[in-house]
């Protein structure tokens, strides 16, 4: 008796599991964005102390980033409980690495243009998180790391 060998199946792509971020993960994100806002505020203050005017475009821009990052932090802390991401742990890891790099780079930064560039990439990362698209998050996290001088 002949036995039939099963036809070779074409492998179907395994869908990425989506996970809702835990409250601790949300809080960690909130804290990261808040910390970056603090660092940007410090860069702005240092520049003012060094002679920049409150109305200088770069100072105004940094002020805007401080507001935006605080709003992002507040949103993560209190409201956005339903943030569900594909490969959530991996995404949170990427975000965490990027925001730590940004925080570290801003800490010793004197160059205001560089601060503007880092802050702007962090804002893009926050927007990418809100799209919940893993591709956009990964790409934005890489941009933050790159602008902070971290090669990934």
């Amino acid at each position, binding site marked *: 008796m002949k036995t039939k060998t099963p036809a070779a199946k074409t492998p179907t792509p395994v869908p990425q599991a989506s996970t809702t971020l*835990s*409250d601790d993960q*949300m*809080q960690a994100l*909130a*804290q990261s964005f*808040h910390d970056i*806002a*603090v660092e940007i*505020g410090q860069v*702005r*203050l240092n520049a*003012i*102390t060094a002679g920049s*005017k*409150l*109305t200088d475009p770069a*100072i*105004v*821009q940094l*002020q*805007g980033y*401080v*507001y*935006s990052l*605080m*709003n992002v*932090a*507040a949103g993560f*802390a*209190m*409201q*956005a*409980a*339903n943030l569900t991401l594909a490969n959530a742990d991996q995404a949170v890891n990427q975000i965490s690495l990027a925001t730590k790099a940004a925080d570290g780079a801003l800490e010793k930064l004197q160059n205001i243009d560089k601060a503007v560039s880092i802050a702007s990439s962090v804002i893009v990362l926050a927007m990418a998180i809100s799209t919940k698209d893993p591709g956009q998050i990964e790409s934005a996290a890489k941009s933050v790391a790159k602008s902070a001088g971290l090669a990934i």
Partner: protein
Amino acid sequence: MCLTMTPRNLSLRLVAVATLLLALDGCVNLDDAAGLSKLSDEARISLPRVSNDVAGTCARQNILFENTPSAERPPNEQAQDCKPYREIADHLAKDENVLADYFDALGKLASNQPMGYDATIETNVAATGANSALSANAIAAGNDAQSILKSLADAATKGYREKQLGQLIQQTDPAIQSLTQSLKKVITVNYATLLSNEELSLDTFYQGPMASAQPNERLALILVQRQYAQDKTALQSRKDDIAAYGKIMDDIAALHTKLKQEADKKASIVEICKQVRPIVLSLKAALADIQSRSK
């Protein structure tokens, strides 16, 4: 053994028991033992003073934003929308109210008074319904509050009296433990982040202009420095409230655990008095602490 007692001996015994009870701060039932009704009244005053500030901090940050000259901020930057924070504060106040209602109900049952909660329960259950815009902790608190309200509704419907008190305490303990921890986390973690944001807003608002002040603005600078220091003190007081709130939630959880343990053991009122007194004192102190700061 003498089984009969003369009226004089009986009177002496009654006096002795009454003296003992007075010595134990007048403990004649569980409500006296734990001061449940009084605690519930104090909690209704103190807890919302902290949780209402979830919306308060948003409003204060907006005032700072609006008082920043428009030339010093990007033209497209908007003040925060405080409505979601007001909703969260309302939600928290309702959850805190459930906690207060529960301890008040325990107090009433302990002194064998009718609970009379039927009217309010339905409204509260509906009002604490799920709100998808809340943090996970706030949602958990809302679910626990609903569970406690249902137990209270059940107890009211079945006409619970003092002897069913232990049953109610055992039945609601998981929800009380969970609700207190969720409320604690919303305030000590989530709201604390909002206050950190407010601190950054304050620093940004004052420090920039102070750093760029001209030598001929010396007196104006002194006034601004004083105002800044005053605002920082007020902020610190709110941070102290966070610590007190966390302690209150821990104490309420510990008090309920103790009541449950004593109910399991069918302990005497005197024993319950002894066991819960330190927790009740700590709880009263933390509640008074918040009230003293808000004066």
